[in-house]
């Protein structure tokens, strides 16, 4: 491959430059990778990695798919960012420093001086302001995908070219995550004025890499932006994102045709690559900020009866499923409503108290059968609306088999995404398999999926009203003390799992495999962050 020969020469030529880098930033990345601090980043080389899907747009504001993030992130900057190697710590990206007023209602950011866009123009506070205005109040023809996360912003002001001030309507505990969100990229104000949709088809940002070309269905190429505002970065000469199917990805990794894939592999895909690459492979694992859940339609028979819902939850052998499905699919840990492994998560001792989380499956199944009998649904059969892709299909196979064991018959109806959404909005379903993802662990972000439907009709689709649950949700959202907040989160989970309007099944496991020479990349519970490739270098 082309990069092989090029790597040799550039790498020796630029070693001196690499030594000039600030030692602090260097050490933390190297440590995070588990390599010795003596491993200094080397400049040069082209990173090749796979992305399974084609990007539907180039505009990060108007999409939610990783297919866009994994190609566009290297081309753009954000106001803040998650600190490499120290997730979920937040540091500045374009912002050099910032102050927050004690009442949490004013956020003032100072930008780095000398930030340049790829076309050579300067990036100023005005570009940030216009980009955020586009996000919270999109012009006609633009749809901002995460518009609700900006509702608490009252005004955005730019007292001078390097200062930007956000004034809030109300305290928003998640606002720092919004500023650090990889989706909230900064576009050129001047270009947006000429065409508010320019980012849809043109790539022009201030990120570490300049756009070179995109050949549909084949590849996407970026090259180093020499005027990138962070001194010495990026290390790579460029990157090449190659489009391929998951099974081809595994063969390509095993054959060293690509160096990495950043979304995630299944365990056996991981094993195949590791077997082929031997010591040349490195793997990273973490519970994913993503879980499967089953929504019941609580307005309709038979699931208007909490006993029936609880019986279904009781019949699922989550521990067995986790131990075994994790060998063949992306499904992983058992967890409640917040990500297992996060600071909000319940301990195992707390979990086994919940219905359906107890370790004694015989007892669980007996109780489930008793509940069904009591409710008058001994020969229950229902249709589960499911999506026609993995790991939904695997989860469906698992659920059907589990429920068969308590005599419940399930028809697994796998549909296209449009039909799946229309079932949600019309309420034309009995039970619906779903997944939920956020890019931060903040409980407000996550629990919203389970509150009363009238409070969050777009997300909470189980069609139940439970004011007790809502009040717990509101109380935790305002609670500043983390320990107290955690207690409220537990109470919320207890109440929800007891009523079982919607039940978590299993969390996903993120498994990333790459060649060992890829250095400086950070693993995190979401595949949407740490993808600007500025810190990556090749050994």
């Amino acid at each position, binding site marked *: 491959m082309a990069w092989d020969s090029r790597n040799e020469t550039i790498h020796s030529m630029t070693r001196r430059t690499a030594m000039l880098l600030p030692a602090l930033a260097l050490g933390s990345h190297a440590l995070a990778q588990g390599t010795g601090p003596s491993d200094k980043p080397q400049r040069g080389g082209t990173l090749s990695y796979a992305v399974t899907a084609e990007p539907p747009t180039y505009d990060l504001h108007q999409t939610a798919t990783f297919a866009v993030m994994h190609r566009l992130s290297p081309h753009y900057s954000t106001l803040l960012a998650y600190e490499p190697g120290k997730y979920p710590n937040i540091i500045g990206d374009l912002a050099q420093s910032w102050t927050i007023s004690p009442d949490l209602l004013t956020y003032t950011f100072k930008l780095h001086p000398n930030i340049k866009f790829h076309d050579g123009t300067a990036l100023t506070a005005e570009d940030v302001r216009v980009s955020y205005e586009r996000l919270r109040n999109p012009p006609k023809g633009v749809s901002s995908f995460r518009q609700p996360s900006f509702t608490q912003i009252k005004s955005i002001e730019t007292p001078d070219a390097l200062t930007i001030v956000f004034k809030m309507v109300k305290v928003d505990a998640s606002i720092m995550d919004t500023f650090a969100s990889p989706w909230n990229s900064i576009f050129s104000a001047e270009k947006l004025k000429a065409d508010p949709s320019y980012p849809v088809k043109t790539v022009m940002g201030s990120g570490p890499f300049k756009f070179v070309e995109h050949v549909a269905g084949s590849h996407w190429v970026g090259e180093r932006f020499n005027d990138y505002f962070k001194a010495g970065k990026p290390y790579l000469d460029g990157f090449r994102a190659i489009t391929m199917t998951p099974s081809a990805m595994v063969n390509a990794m095993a054959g060293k045709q690509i160096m990495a894939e950043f979304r995630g592999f*299944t365990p056996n895909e991981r094993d195949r690559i590791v077997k082929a690459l031997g010591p040349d492979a490195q793997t990273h694992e973490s519970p994913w900020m993503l879980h499967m859940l089953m929504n019941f339609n609580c307005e309709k028979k038979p699931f208007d009866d909490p006993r029936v819902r609880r019986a279904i939850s009781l019949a699922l052998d989550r521990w067995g499923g986790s131990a075994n499905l994790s060998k063949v699919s992306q499904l992983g840990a058992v967890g409640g409503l917040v990500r297992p492994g996060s600071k909000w998560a319940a301990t195992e001792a707390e979990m086994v108290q919940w219905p359906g989380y107890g370790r004694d499956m015989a007892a669980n199944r007996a109780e489930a059968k008793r509940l069904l009998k009591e409710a008058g649904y001994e020969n229950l059969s229902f249709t589960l609306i499911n999506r026609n892709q993995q790991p939904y299909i695997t989860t469906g196979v*698992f659920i*059907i088999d589990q429920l068969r064991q308590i005599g419940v018959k399930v028809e697994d109806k796998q549909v296209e995404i449009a039909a799946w959404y229309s079932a949600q909005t019309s309420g034309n379903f009995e039970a619906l398999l779903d997944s939920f993802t956020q890019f931060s662990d903040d409980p407000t972000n996550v629990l919203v999926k389970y509150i009363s439907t009238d409070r969050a009709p777009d997300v909470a689709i189980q069609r139940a009203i439970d004011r007790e649950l809502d009040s717990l949700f509101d109380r935790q959202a305002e609670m500043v003390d983390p320990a107290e907040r955690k207690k409220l989160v537990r109470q919320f989970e207890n109440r929800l799992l007891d009523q079982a309007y919607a039940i978590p099944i299993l969390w996903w496991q993120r498994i990333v495999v790459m060649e060992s020479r890829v250095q400086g990349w950070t693993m995190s519970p979401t595949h949407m962050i740490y993808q600007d490739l500025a810190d990556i270098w090749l050994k």
Partner: protein
Amino acid sequence: MAMLNRVLKNVVLFCRLQPLGALGLLIILVMATCAVFAEQVTFYNPEAVDFGAMLSGPSADHPFGTDSFGRDIFTRIVYGARTALTIGFLSSMIGCHIGAAIGIASAFHGGWIDLLLQRFIDIILSFPIVVLALVVVAVMGKTLVLGIDLNLVFAIAIPIIPRSCRVIRAATLSIRTQPYVDAARAGGYSTVYILLRYIAPNVIAPFLVLLTAYIAQAILLEASLSFLGLGVSEPKPAWGLMLAGDSANFYNEAPWMILFPGLAISLSVFAFNLFGDSLRDWLDPKYRN
């Protein structure tokens, strides 16, 4: 009794003259028997997950091994035969019958109706089979009746219609122009009478050949669609589906996952083709001597 004797004699004669066809017929019969008595010839539930037996190789317990859910592959292949034969037979029946009806009507009527219908058939014929079925399946979604996806059956039947129509039209045309048919018409016999008395016996042979040939095509098409994720869906056992998605990821650990379902598809299509081929030779007077 005499009737039975005649049938038996014919069967024996067919087997003697067309040994390959007889082999095909035998395979079909074995498969059909397995499909009907699936519960009796297997020891597992085709949808039962067994975590203890995930990805285990062929053994006495699991002659064809198990898949990534620990489901018995032999069992799933036997039940898969039920899926394949049902969908194959139904699609071919529907497609060939509709096609034959249009073909006979078109040939018998002649004139502008014939011209118009044939143009239309031309158009449908210019869509590649898989492409047409794919679009139809995507358009219609799923309608399950007794566990069979009727829309899938229909999607597979549609590309068969114009092909069956062509053949039957040609066969009808060759009879229609015979002097004795003209005589019957002149004699005032009704269309229905002529159809039943003269046309039907003469198109029955090509029709039977078509029917067998298209069962093979339909099985292949169902497997292709299921492989693409647009046909039968999990956890129902279907051969194409067993090859889809995950199974390609187990090339190393569990090659039996892709070996046996593919063999099942090939063997069944092979059998129908073999039988259909011999049936044609046997029924075709030109080859009979």
